[in-house]
């Protein structure tokens, strides 16, 4: 009996020993590794990519390309910005970036006085180079180093040509644009006009609205009310495509309308895949990201090398529903 008791206690001891060791191992295992301390104080060049349209597929691609390129070139790049075209936040971000004395800013161009003021005065005061990406601003208004992105004039032209070939030489087309005149929209419009002005039969109705979704809906409604015999829509600002189509589809089929836009809106590609958009201009955001970073790095490494002020243009092509089929 005593032997049995002893054996039991011994066994218990071994079992307890096992559990204790297990528990001790858990306690003393150094988990939750802290991030390693940073190396040298003055390290890689710090670049910042700032956009108004964070978390849209178009800008995600630009960011991705830029981050990859930055890693390749040994630079630290962060993507900042505002959501949903928020101009105020966007400008604040630029200002913070300037005060933070980053080595270079790659920014989505926004042709406004504040923007130009920041890029021209503050940036040159702090000696920070600025490259615009995807959307340009007039080079004389802001002292940007260069522009990387699509040729917006050409894009406008391509849309116009597509419209003509789809719709024919006659029709009534609404062009929706941002009330705040963005430089890239103006360029797109110019491109459009350069083609469509030749067609007397095509009636262009130019309409402007704010970026607020409600206003876009109201404006679309208004246009549809005023001119029920519309043939097509062109959203110069890709953000407008979605609310526009939503409003149209409330009244009638979307199908009969010729609707065109660009791929830099948050829902552009989705709408195109649903065939609600008849055609979009496909740009090359990935290349934009890469090129902008690599140009910025070139500039930082060797400032003597002049950058082409006119900009580095990336590919664009027309995506048509027909092609997709």
């Amino acid at each position, binding site marked *: 009996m005593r032997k049995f008791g002893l054996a039991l206690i011994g066994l218990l001891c071994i079992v307890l020993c096992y559990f204790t060791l297990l528990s001790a191992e858990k306690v003393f295992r150094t988990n939750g590794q802290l991030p390693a301390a940073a190396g040298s104080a003055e390290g890689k060049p710090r670049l910042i990519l700032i956009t108004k349209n964070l978390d849209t597929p178009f800008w995600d691609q630009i960011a991705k390309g830029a981050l990859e390129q930055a890693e390749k070139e040994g630079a630290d790049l962060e993507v900042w910005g505002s959501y949903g075209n928020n101009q105020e936040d966007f400008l604040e971000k630029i200002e913070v*970036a300037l005060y933070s004395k980053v080595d270079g800013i790659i920014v989505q161009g926004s042709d406004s006085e504040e923007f130009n003021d920041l890029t021209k005065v503050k940036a040159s005061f702090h000696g920070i180079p600025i490259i615009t990406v995807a959307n340009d601003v007039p080079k004389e208004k802001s002292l940007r180093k260069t522009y990387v992105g699509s040729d917006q004039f050409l894009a406008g032209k391509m849309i116009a040509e597509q419209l003509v070939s789809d719709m024919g030489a006659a029709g009534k087309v609404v062009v929706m644009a941002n009330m705040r005149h963005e430089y890239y929209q103006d360029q797109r419009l110019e491109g459009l006009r350069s083609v469509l002005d030749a067609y007397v039969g095509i009636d262009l109705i130019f309409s402007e609205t704010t970026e607020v979704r409600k206003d876009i809906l109201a404006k679309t409604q208004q246009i549809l009310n005023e001119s029920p015999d519309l043939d097509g829509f062109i959203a110069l600002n890709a953000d407008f495509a979605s609310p526009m189509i939503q409003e149209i589809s409330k009244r009638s089929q979307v199908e009969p309308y010729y609707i065109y836009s660009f791929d830099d809106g948050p829902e552009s590609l989705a709408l195109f895949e649903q065939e609600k958009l008849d055609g979009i201009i496909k740009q090359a955001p990935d290349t934009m990201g890469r090129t902008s970073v690599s140009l910025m790095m070139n500039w930082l490494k060797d400032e003597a090398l002049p950058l082409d002020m006119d900009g580095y243009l990336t590919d664009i092509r027309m995506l048509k529903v027909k092609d997709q089929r």
Partner: protein
Amino acid sequence: MNKIQKKVWMLALVVLFIMSAIWITLTYYNQKTQSQYNDVLQRYLSLNEVTVISQQLVTDLNNYLIKPTPDNLEKLDASKKQIHEAKDEIFDLRNEENEFALTNYTNLLESLVETTDRSMMLQSEQEAEGSNEEFSEATRISTYISEMTLTIIDTELKTYERFYRSIIEQSEELKQLGIWLLLLITFVLLLLTYWFSISITKPVQMLTQSANELSKGRFDLEIKVDSNDEISFLAQTFDRMRININNLIIEIQEKAQLERELQQNKLLLQESQLLGLQSQINPHFLFNTLNILSKKAYLEGAEETSDLLVSVAGLLRYNLKRLDRPVTLYEELIVLKQYIEIQQARFTDRLNVHMEVDESCLNVKIPGLTLQPIIENAVIHAIEPEEDGGHIWFRVIDKGNAVIIEIEDDGKGMSHEKINQLLGGQKVPAEGHSTGIGFANVVQRLRIFYRAENVLGIESEEGKGTKVIMTLPKMGEEKQYG
């Protein structure tokens, strides 16, 4: 040092060691965790401090712009110094994940100081407009700093989340470890204490048992204690005492035995001598008379009678002489033959004695007059009562280290009880008429002489005769005994 004391110390030291090991480990662990907590808190405090200081700087700047007194200037400078210190502190907080953000952060602080400086400079140059502009810029930067502080704290939380969680988990695990440890130590100590106590009490128990046995008088059991402490020493001493006592007792017993034997021997001798004396009605006269009778019978031509008388005379002389000392088997045999002659004269054809003697054994020493009484017994019990007489076989056989003497008759034998009575040395009521020395006397003398119990054996069955077997060890050196 004392061994048991050593054991107690060992146990205490083991317990102490376990306790202190656990205490040190836990303290170390606690310290580590504490310093981790402190680091974490310090990070947040530093970050928060930056916001406060930057706001303070803006306030001081404002005060200075409104009222440019040396006092305000001093405060402003103090704030600026604080900003620099904070900047250095923040600089130490950088790691791979927040390096970018923290560099921006420190640069923002720098910008704030620069803007402040510019504002002060413009103020001193009496350019109120520019100064105010810079001031508003400083205010903006201060706001950005606040915002960025929040962002950075937010990122910090995200970066360190896993770490914080692991700290929480570990403290939970620590609680569990404590419970396991407590249980483990409890049982380990139980085991240790058991072993320890048994190593002390078991020898004591064994010793107690041995003492018990001794007190009961069993001195032949060895006292053995498996232990390496004082108890074992005690046991050894105890055992030596036991052996000594045992030896003493054996010695005393042997002495007593010897004394008793001596006493017995003396008594027997006295008995024999008494018998001898009784029959000493002038034995020499009788002996001489017998000789004269023998010669007379010889001269008268009765040769047989003469021989018989010589035998009787020889027997008588032998009886007179040889009681108190050992004789050889040869001498004993001569007397035996004389006795047989006498008896044969008496019984003639009825007595048939067959002798088979190994001549090599004849110099064995035996006590005198031991064979004759046995033959006499055989004659009395096997020949006398039988009308047709009987046979007696007498054999002397060499058995290597012993000589076997067998005396066998074909009389009516005897019962088992009687054999036991005879061998037990009890007086048996005499039948007939012997020469005087009884069987019991012979047995006793043989035993005393050879110092052995089994010298003489009797095999008998009623109606089938009796066989007396004497086993006489061949002694190297014969000693006179008694």
